């Protein structure tokens, strides 16, 4: 039975957090599409080949566009070079951060960890806090008061979303946290999902990051040029726009407080270039339901699941035809959300009913 609440509290230490626990929405059991164990085992197999190929290509493209940006520095030709460099540096890092954070991208663990640390820096997400926040995101996906990674809380902050295209909202917040961590402190919210055993790692990583930033800033001052910062640091801002375009498709406008990823995640078909940048994260519903399946097997997993899931979106345009009006409507009507239609053949899940509705 839906429970009426007046206004959502997205804080992890507030009223909705307690509500989620009381309603059994925290650390709950989620629906999983039936896939024979034998097939799932095949899909879960890890490989080093595809991620090594993709990572070498990524580094080569970063090197090439960075070199072009430097070469044409001072002319208009550096603009397209840095647009491409920024996307490769920041937006591409989003998916590398994600897949390597799950340690599923590479078969070899240390390769996941090295790429994870690098990508975390480039996308401006502190590696340890974000590993734990993402863990919580998987435990309590889009559960209000529990999930720290709800990109579009209701009512949506339109200006914040626009600023997000260049990390102008999240970036300064992240820097504040980095400085706090340098001082050996965590926020109250972070303490709800980061175990104490990880605190030292948080603090020392933040100090290393600050050292890197100080070095690059000193280099820029010594060279009397913005160029060093165009290569390291600033791309986390000017290269973020594509990750926001991709990222908003994951959950924006969909149901909150449901225990069925079919109702709160989108799968959006993308072209091969976008899928390289996004490392198949566009198969987001598949990833949430079976996070053990590596990115290169997600298209095959999609084939296994699709009879039991809502229709995927044919592309970004179709997805945004739904997302933009939904977000717009939620500004005035925060109770509104897009109800995903399960196909007639799909198995319903009893808990797939939103339990909290804004009045």
């Amino acid at each position, binding site marked *: 039975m839906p429970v009426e609440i007046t206004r959502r509290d997205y804080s992890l230490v507030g009223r909705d957090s307690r509500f989620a626990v009381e309603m059994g929405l925290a650390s709950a059991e989620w629906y999983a599409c039936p896939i024979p*164990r034998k097939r799932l085992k095949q899909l879960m197999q*890890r490989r080093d080949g595809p991620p090594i190929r993709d990572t070498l290509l990524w580094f080569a493209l970063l090197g090439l566009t960075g070199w072009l940006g430097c070469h044409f520095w001072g002319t208009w030709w550096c603009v397209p070079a840095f647009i491409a460099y920024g996307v490769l540096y920041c937006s591409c890092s989003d998916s590398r951060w994600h897949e390597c954070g799950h340690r599923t991208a590479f*078969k070899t663990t240390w390769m996941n960890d090295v790429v994870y640390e690098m990508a975390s820096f480039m996308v401006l997400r502190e590696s340890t806090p974000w590993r*734990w926040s993402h*863990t919580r995101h*998987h435990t309590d996906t889009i559960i209000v008061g529990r999930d720290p990674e709800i990109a579009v809380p209701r009512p949506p902050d339109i200006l914040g979303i626009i600023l997000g295209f260049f990390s102008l909202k999240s970036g300064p917040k992240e820097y504040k946290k980095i400085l706090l961590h340098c001082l050996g402190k965590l926020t109250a919210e972070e303490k709800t999902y980061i175990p104490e055993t990880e605190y030292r790692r948080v603090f020392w990583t933040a100090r290393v990051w600050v050292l890197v930033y100080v070095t690059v800033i000193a280099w820029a001052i010594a060279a009397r040029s913005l160029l060093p910062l165009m290569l390291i640091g600033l791309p986390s801002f000017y290269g973020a726009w594509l990750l926001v375009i991709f990222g908003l498709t994951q959950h924006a406008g969909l149901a909150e407080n449901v225990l069925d990823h079919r109702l709160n995640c989108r799968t959006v078909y993308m072209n091969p270039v976008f899928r390289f940048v996004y490392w198949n994260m566009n198969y987001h519903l598949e990833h949430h339901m079976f*996070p*053990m399946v590596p990115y290169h097997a997600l298209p095959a997993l999609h084939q296994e699941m699709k009879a039991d899931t809502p229709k995927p979106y044919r592309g970004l345009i179709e997805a945004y035809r739904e997302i933009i009006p939904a977000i717009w409507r939620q500004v005035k009507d925060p109770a509104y959300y897009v109800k995903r239609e399960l196909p007639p053949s799909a198995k319903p899940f009893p808990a797939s009913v939103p339990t909290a509705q804004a009045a």
Partner: protein
Amino acid sequence: MNDGWIKTCNVDDVEPEDVLRFDHGEQTFAIYRTTDDKFYATDGLCTHQKVHLAGGFVMDHLIECPKHNGRFDFTTGQAKGAPVCVDLKTYPTRVENGEVFIRIG
């Protein structure tokens, strides 16, 4: 039951490089079979958030939890890093006449 040894399953019930759930009273266990046909047993629930490890993925001597990809060495129970921080309890195993036994006493 004999000296704490209990029968869990037949050898063929677990594929090589795989894991099987085994419930006994209130307890639940995970029974592993390696590619060289050795059997191991641990507690059945992940120490992070009590998810059944039998839904996870076996790679060499590692079991990866299906919920957040936390990994344990199932031969020793050792947690192999975030998000799992607490080791798993392991149990001795033995194979007799095609049947897998674990000692829980």
